[in-house]
């Protein structure tokens, strides 16, 4: 029931925090580490707004216990850009206008990164599949552009 001391590797840096056992990775990232780029969406593992990468694999931070992440490398949307430059995906999303309200854009960026890290030239269908539910609310607007932004 007490807090536990945890060291997580987030965006290339070890971060030590005291976290409640029942707090998810999403809550720890946002509340303990101040990394509020990762968003609360449905919080039930459906929408994908909270997607982060654990060792390059997209997972749902809202259903992950931080203690079980162990020594794995966690990448959040804050880890995409370098000090000076946006990540090419962020540039592409901006140029294509790949957002409607933008709330789930961090999740889209992280799934897109995982897809492009493993597939050099994804098809439109593969890109849609990899996003899962994320483009759904945007089907008529930014969703199409978000898919376009991932294509070469």
């Amino acid at each position, binding site marked *: *029931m007490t807090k536990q001391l945890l060291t997580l590797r987030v965006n290339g840096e070890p971060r030590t925090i005291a976290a*409640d*056992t*029942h*707090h*998810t990775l999403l*809550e720890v990232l946002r509340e303990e580490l101040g990394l509020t780029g990762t968003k*609360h969406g449905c*919080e*039930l*593992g*459906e929408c*994908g707004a909270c*997607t982060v990468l654990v060792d390059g*694999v*997209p*997972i*749902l931070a809202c*259903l*992950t*216990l931080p*203690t*079980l992440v162990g020594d794995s490398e966690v990448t959040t949307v804050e880890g995409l850009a370098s000090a000076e430059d946006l990540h090419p995906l962020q540039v592409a999303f901006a140029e294509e206008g790949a957002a409607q309200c933008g709330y789930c854009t961090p999740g889209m960026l992280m*799934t897109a990164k995982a897809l492009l890290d493993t597939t050099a030239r994804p098809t439109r269908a593969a890109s849609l*599949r*990899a*996003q*899962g*539910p994320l483009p*759904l609310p945007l089907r008529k607007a930014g969703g199409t552009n978000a898919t376009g932004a991932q294509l070469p």
Partner: protein
Amino acid sequence: MLRLPRFRLLEPRSYGEAAQLLAENGAGALDRSRGTPTLRVMLVAGGTDLFPNMKRRQFTPELLISLARVRDASGIQRNGHLDISAGTTLSAIAQDPGIRERSTALAEAAEVVSTPQLRNMGTIGGNICLDTRCNWYDQSLFWRTAEGFCMKTNPDVVCRVATSSPRCLAVASADTVPALLVLGATVHFEDAEGGRDVPLADLYQEDGIQPMALRQDEVLTDVTLPEADGWRSTYLKMRDRGSFDFPIAAVAAAVRWDGAKVSEARIAITALGSRPQLVADAARPLVGTSLDDVTIALAAEAVHKAARPMDNTSGTISQRKRAALVFTERALRSLRPA
């Protein structure tokens, strides 16, 4: 914000240790002090089914035993048969070329569970042990408190789906189970004393509260499929939104070809009752045929008869029964030789 209820977490390194912890901590005991009775001790693997349920306070266990750190908990081995460790993720199963080619229904089913992110976390063992679902049950604590709960969490209350029902009518919703059923799967459990093998078809029972005939001090460790020589199989699922929903009607079919004739056949359905089930009446007419249209229509009619959906998921009863019929036809047609 939806937070998890507080719990203690134990992280055993082996299934034997997990079984020992279950026994030591009184697995199966109910805690009645938290509003709705809840299991005091629960196992968690990927957490993709249990954690949403815990956030909705459908379960508020005091102790969670995580299987995430169990050694060799994931992996796919072939030695005459296919052995899948219970902690193997649904993504790994969907992407395995051998499963895709020889146990196609399983790869297809694993691939349509929820979202890609969730499949990277959710395990085959977790999917086999998935909680049943219902429109009256999968709701927030606020919603359920206002409604006065239902039989599934509070045995004194009626089943809200059919108030005269003597049992809970919550729906079996695991995609991989009908696929595993038509592929002839056996599951292995371990407890503190030893282990046992159970044919998967014998695991499920028509009860939304206790959908599986298993004890709370057992751990599911492996799924075994027999050699798939000559078999072709497929899985078809209806859901609200193609990108992430649970099934509201689903059919798995497998046939074994001996030359131009079917020598063995199995058809299983889920999301159409409280348990996934093999439909023997649908499979029987297929044997000895070459899956002509008339035979397929007979099988589809038998599936239509066996499907008993209630009004407790998305979709209407007639739509889901109709889907079971149409999906059986489509599935069987797709299994004809190329």
